[in-house]
């Protein structure tokens, strides 16, 4: 009487469902980052950039490109998972997942892969937009760039998942991105090198985790960084490990999803 359960089919189904979800609403998910980043490139890159001069030896617009790509990847991978998982809770379609034989790690991985797919897609879109404004851009270290892109998308998808687990209302899914994530990203070296800051603010900036993500990516794309790459990669891997453990603990315990 025993029936076989295919984990790979279940994971594939959930991942495709998640990807289909953000592609279906592409006007809300894919177009806005392209428009916003175009404005950044026009205003800060083409209009104000030449007056700023160079930053760490690069044209300002060139220096900004990795930061803006990271900004888009972080916010989109986070928002994808937090809004999708919270919607699933809100619509009660989480019951479809809980009743099914899918192990908790498959549920987590499916949502994270959805977030990663959107983050990477947005990253590629923003990179393509940047080439319109700076066609000569070349990537210094493609393997490191791709590695950091994927790790960042994973890291912030996991954060979005935890936010969604604890969220009880739509307000709860916008508080952290608006009041914590966005300020940390903007102050994490997207638009400037921390070397231009006074000592005190530079030291304070070193405590901002976004700084490591943005600078590791900048190392991959431009070959320059304000921080140690090995230390930064170690931090990213550690955070992914801690957050994965936390997500699985919350799912196993049923926090926010089981009565």
């Amino acid at each position, binding site marked *: *009487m*025993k*029936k*076989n*359960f*295919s*984990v790979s*089919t*279940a994971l*594939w*189904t*959930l991942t495709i*469902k998640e990807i289909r979800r953000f592609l*279906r609403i592409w006007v809300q998910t894919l177009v806005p980052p392209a428009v916003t980043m175009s404005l950044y490139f026009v205003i800060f890159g083409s209009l104000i950039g030449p007056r700023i001069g160079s930053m760490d030896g690069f044209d300002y617009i060139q220096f900004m490109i990795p930061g803006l790509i990271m900004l888009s990847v972080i916010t989109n991978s986070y928002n994808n998972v937090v809004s999708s998982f919270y*919607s*699933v809770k809100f*619509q*009660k*379609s*989480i*019951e*479809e*997942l*809980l*009743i*099914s*034989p*899918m*192990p908790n790690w498959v549920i987590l991985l499916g949502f994270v892969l959805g977030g990663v797919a959107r983050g990477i897609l947005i990253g590629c879109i923003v990179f393509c937009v940047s080439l319109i404004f700076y066609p000569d851009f070349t990537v210094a270290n493609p393997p490191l760039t791709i590695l950091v892109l994927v790790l960042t998308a994973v890291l912030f998808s996991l954060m979005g998942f935890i936010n969604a687990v604890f969220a009880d209302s739509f307000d709860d899914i916008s508080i952290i991105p608006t009041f914590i994530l966005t300020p940390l990203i903007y102050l994490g070296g997207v638009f400037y090198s921390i070397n231009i800051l006074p000592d005190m603010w530079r030291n304070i900036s070193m405590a901002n985790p976004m700084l490591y993500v943005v600078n590791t990516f900048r190392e991959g794309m431009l070959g320059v960084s304000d921080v140690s790459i090995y230390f930064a990669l170690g931090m990213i891997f550690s955070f992914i490990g801690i957050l994965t453990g936390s997500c699985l603990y919350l799912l196993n315990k*049923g926090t926010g999803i*089981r*009565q």
Partner: protein
Amino acid sequence: MAFALEITDLKKTYPGGVEALKGISFAVNEGDFYALLGPNGAGKSSTIGIIGSLVTKSSGKVKIFDIDTDGNNEQAKMMLGVVSQEINFSQFEKVIDIVVTQAGFYGISKSEALPRVESIFKRLGLWDKKDVQARTLSGGYKRRLMIAKALVHEPKLLILDEPTAGVDIELRREMWTFLKEINKNGTTIILTTHYLEEAEQLCRNIGIIDGGKIVANTGMKDLLGSLNVQGYVFDLDSPLSEAPEIEGFPLKLEDPLTLIAAVNKDRSINALFEKLSEKGIKVKSMRNESNRLEELFIEMVKK
């Protein structure tokens, strides 16, 4: 005979101290059509929630086809289909995608799921609606979709939590026929419902839960057999001004054309017809005063 479901000393206390289940135990035979009844807040949905992994139990055992849900939850879940009380699918997806995706969650590939979905949709009258967005469906079709979703992985045990709540009589009857058919084909069914007529029509065995405890767990025939008095409603041919007096048959006039009789189990209703005829009272039609199960149910949960 093997049990499709075996529950032992199941307890659930919610945060805040509400004790929803106070150690219930019951078993459902394989192939059975079982009714789990109880008033609102009795513990039915908590029980179903625990079986379906939607609610975390405080203590106790749940076995599905002898598989302990604590030990091998994956195998147990493959055997189980649950139709929840509330709509629980994404309203913005196409009807067919919802069910194919649900099959995927059970490890069933799209190519394997599509023929099954076609068969279930045709049986439930959903085939014409397969490409519409779920949010555009009427309440009745949404219920059908819930059932289709629960059946796509061909569960051996199907639990329906008030599946016909809010659907019209025609659809309810259609669903009864469908459920009888899948039960006949070997699927064990557990049903909770507020329509006691539904339970009486469909189910062979019955459990009544009240205040977190099982107050009855028996065969439907045995339970109904325990009724001593049956009420009948007579629609009269011509109006009466007062209820006639007939020895051994208490009669009550509901309105000038409706007479209600209480007939003891050891008396023949033919005798009552004869007496009415002697008094020149003509009966046009007759029906049960109320659902028999309803009387017992009210009696049991009052205790």
